[in-house]
Each structure stands twice: as structure tokens, then as C-alpha cells.
């Protein structure tokens, strides 16, 4: 199992263009966050709290998430579009199991790429002048880590599933991107009509599970789980029923 996950990670990291874009953007963001922090510190008389530092990092995660969506949807489509999935099937393993193992490789890779970003956020929250004399609490740290984990895992699974459903890297990426970006815009419009419907959209539901909004936590958890079941279930069903 571990050997398979290692090779699945290799399949993702081997697509150097998209993978190093993800790494590069994430690291660039760490650097940017530091620079912004320094500027803010210079122009402010008092130091910002550790909680605010972590919030800044959480907000900036939006950028690498875009790249993870791209990487995951491409990974979801690749084996089908490239014809390698049929050779995976010939190993005798069940098709849903093969898809799940590939998804696991994508999630592990995305989380690994997020790790330096999280570490940088924590270091800054405790040591950098931004944190000042008011360092982050254990709750702030847990919330920050959960936010990163939940967002990265959720969008990796959704984008991977969309890629696996579409079976074309380009189409998979396009649909996953529309879901990701369009969700915010559509949610904003929907919110004017029904706030409950807005709350169950993927972008808002998964953010609610991190507790950083005032939306009902229970609804966020249920809606997030439902979206995961819907997307992953559809991808698994199509994979199991298809012939190769």
C-alpha cells in the first residue's frame, strides 16, 4: 500500500510543469506573506496578533488551492485519457480501488506541498514581529491547520473526481476551475436570495467546517460530506462501470 502511494505521488510530481508550479506558487506565497507582514509591521505602531497572522496565511491559501485544483483534476483524468488505466486494471485490482489509490497519491502530494506553507505560518504566528506580544492560541493553530488540511483535501478530492469523470485533462481542469471560482461568484448571488443555499455550496460549506465564518457548523459539515460523496461517488461509479 505504501509502495503504491509512493508511486502515485511520483506520477503527480513527475508532471513537472504543474507540480513545480504548485510548489513554486506556494513558496512564493510564503515569501509574499513575509514581505507583506514586514511592511505592515513597519507602518503600524503596534504589532499584529498571532491570530491575525494565521488568518492572513489562511486567506492566502486561496492562491495555491487554484494550482492544486489544476493538478488534481489533471491527475484524475490522466490514466483514462492516456490509456494507462487499462494496464492498472490488468493487475487484477478492483477499479474503484485503483481510483482511490490514485486519489490518495494526489491528496498526499497536495498536503506535502502545503506543509512548508503551514510551517511558515506557524513560525510567523509565534516568532515574527507580527505576532507581537499576543501569540496565537492552541485553538488558533488548530483552526489554521484544519483550514489548510480541509481545503486542500476537499478540493483535491473534488477536482480529482471531476477529472476522473470527464476523462480529459483539459475538460476536467476547466470544470474543476469553474466549480472552484464560480462557486464564490454564484454563492454571492445566491446569498442574496437564500443564505441557506449559499451555505451549502462547496466553497462556503468547506470553509464553514473550519469555524472561521458565522455560518452553522453542522450544515457546513453535512454539506461538505455530501459534496464529497457526490463527486467521489460519481467518479467511482463511472470507473467501476466503464470498460477499458
Amino acid at each position, binding site marked *: 500500500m505504501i*509502495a*503504491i502511494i*509512493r*508511486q502515485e505521488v*511520483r*506520477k503527480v510530481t*513527475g*508532471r*513537472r510543469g504543474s507540480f513545480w508550479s504548485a510548489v513554486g506558487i506556494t513558496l512564493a506565497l510564503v515569501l509574499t506573506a513575509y514581505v507583506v507582514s514586514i511592511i505592515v509591521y513597519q507602518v503600524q505602531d503596534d504589532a499584529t496578533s498571532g491570530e491575525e497572522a494565521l488568518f492572513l496565511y489562511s486567506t492566502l491559501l486561496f492562491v495555491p488551492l487554484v494550482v492544486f485544483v489544476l493538478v488534481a483534476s489533471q491527475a484524475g483524468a490522466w490514466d483514462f485519457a*492516456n*490509456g*494507462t488505466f*487499462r*494496464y*492498472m*486494471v*490488468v*493487475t*487484477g*485490482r*478492483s477499479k474503484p480501488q485503483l481510483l482511490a489509490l490514485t486519489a490518495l497519491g494526489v491528496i498526499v502530494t497536495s498536503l506535502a506541498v502545503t506543509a512548508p506553507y503551514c510551517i511558515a505560518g506557524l513560525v510567523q504566528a509565534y516568532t515574527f514581529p507580527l505576532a507581537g506580544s499576543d501569540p496565537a492560541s492552541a485553538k488558533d493553530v488548530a483552526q489554521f491547520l484544519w483550514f489548510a488540511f480541509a481545503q486542500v483535501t476537499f478540493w483535491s478530492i473534488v477536482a480529482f473526481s471531476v477529472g476522473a469523470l470527464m476523462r480529459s485533462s483539459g475538460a476536467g481542469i476547466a470544470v474543476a476551475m469553474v466549480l472552484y471560482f464560480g462557486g464564490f461568484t454564484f454563492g454571492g448571488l445566491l446569498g442574496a436570495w437564500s443564505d441557506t443555499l449559499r451555505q451549502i455550496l462547496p466553497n462556503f460549506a468547506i470553509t464553514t467546517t473550519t469555524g472561521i465564518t458565522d455560518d452553522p457548523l453542522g450544515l457546513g459539515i453535512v454539506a461538505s460530506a455530501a459534496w464529497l460523496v457526490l463527486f467521489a461517488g460519481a467518479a467511482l461509479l463511472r470507473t467501476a462501470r466503464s*470498460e*477499458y
Partner: protein
Amino acid sequence: MSEAGAVIEARDLTKTFGARRAVNNVNLTVPRGVCFGFLGPNGAGKTTMMRMLLGLASPSAGSVLVRGYDVTKSPRAALERVGAIVEEPRFYPYLSGRANLEVWAAYLGNAAEARIDGLLERVGLGERGGDHVRKYSQGMRQRLGLARALMNDPELLVLDEPTNGLDVEAMQEFRLMVREMVEREGRTIFISSHQLHELERICDYVAIVNQGTVIIEGSMKSLIAEGERGVAVDCDDEDGLRRVASSFTGVRAIRKTGDGLLFVEVPPTRETMIALNRALVEAGVGVAQLSRSEESLEERYMAITGAVNGDGAAPAPPPPPPGAPS
């Protein structure tokens, strides 16, 4: 329960796509330790049949046992020691040949990774294993595909058009490798190819499929033996040859071939050929060449598929392979 000694058993195997029957009620038995050629024109159902053997497609009716296990119900057990090239070998082009094999080794387990070096050497990619697959020629990809197919030390190799893209030298190596795998290693090879002259040289058994149906199945020798056999003569006196040959017992026909030779349809035994040559010389007929002539697999194939498609009488089937049900 499977036939003793059979590595593939298809029973009433059918695959439909809408109203079209791609594979129609096929019964096929492939004995262990042989090279079995699966021939047919484009769209005859060969690849669909192979995909069902490998669990890539589900039968609409009937069943297929591989190594005694139903592929649909027990794919892991059935395919545990099966290697394949289906349609064309596909890889991760951004990874090296070796890295690609390592990916599959992880899925196969059972010390497959330890075989990688040896397999790369065996298929002639020992020095290019570190190169990205995107830099490989089609022939090199075929070789890498064969290495992947051998990773789980397979009892059965299912090879769909494995010689596509191979140059003459590689083709010869492939031929030798196939025979070595069958004769020395005891593997069973189920192979489809349009290169019939190659199949004729490597296959022990053959089945010809047309419009989803197996129209003939048997040993290569018997299939060839069922074809037209005789003696081809290049001489300076056609009438003289006709006169001499017609006095021989067993001669069924004498006719001129497309390449200007005279074909005497008679069992081409050594004794007959010596006697015919002596009689011709004694009769004053100058003989430039006298040789055994048998229909090639390609000619038999054309005759058989032509007959089934309405171009002639259907040929009698050769005896089935051992282990096949009567």
C-alpha cells in the same frame, strides 16, 4: 471446473454493443505452454475478445476462465500471473522507462521490482531505461510494454499486435524471445497480429475469427496441411511436364502459377519429388527448379476468410488442440 491443461477457456462468450455482436458465442480453449495465434480482419472482434480475457470488458453472455478462474468474478486470482499488451503499450511519458516499471511493480507486488533490471536487459533497453519514455521510439515502447507484461512472471501473456513498430532486427529478436518463453519457460502466449508470416513462424495453434465468430481453430501444422500442397516446377517444356506428371499416382491437378511456374498438386514427399525430377529428365524435359510448395498461413487465411465471406466454399476445420472439448 476448468479443462485440465487449459489456460484460457471461453464458453459461449458473447459481447454486444447495442445491436452489433462484436463477439458471437465464441468457444475457445487455449492449452498451456503454447503460442496461440488469434487472427482476423480489422473489426472481427479480436481486441474485444482480448479485453474480455483481461477483465477490461464484461461479457454480455457466456464466461471466460483464465488459469481456471472466472475473470469477471475473481479478477485478482485470474490475472495474478497474466501479462498483456492491449492495443498499444501506454506509459507515463514524463517518467523514465525504469520509473514506469517501478510504478507497475508497486501494484504487482511479489518482488516484481527485483525483476526490472533483468527485464530491461532482456528487451534490449538496459542502457535506455533511464531515459524518459517520451524520447522512446514506437519500437522501444513496444519493448518496454513487453518488459511490463513480463513483470509478474506471467503464465499467460496476452499480446495484441505486439510487433507494431518493430524493425526487422527487433522482429527477429521478438520471434526468438516468444519461442524461448514458450519452449524454455513454459509460458502460454495468446497473440494477435496482422503479420501473418511472423505468426506462422512462432505459433503452435491458431484460431481465425471473423465477424465475431471463431471460424476455424486448430494446430498451425494441421491448418497449413489442410491447404493446397504440391510441387512447383520451372522447366522448358510445359507439355512434356503435363504428360509426365499426369502419369504419376496422386496427382490431382497441374496448372500454371502466377509467377510462371507449373504447379503439380500432389503430396510433396521427398520420394515423389525425386521420382518426378528423374522422370522429367528422362523424358527430355529441362528442369531449372523443382521445389516443395505449400500454402502459407496468409494464403490459408485469405482462403478461409474469403470462403466465409462468400468468396468460395468453407474449408473443413483442422483437428482441435489437445484439451479442447469435442
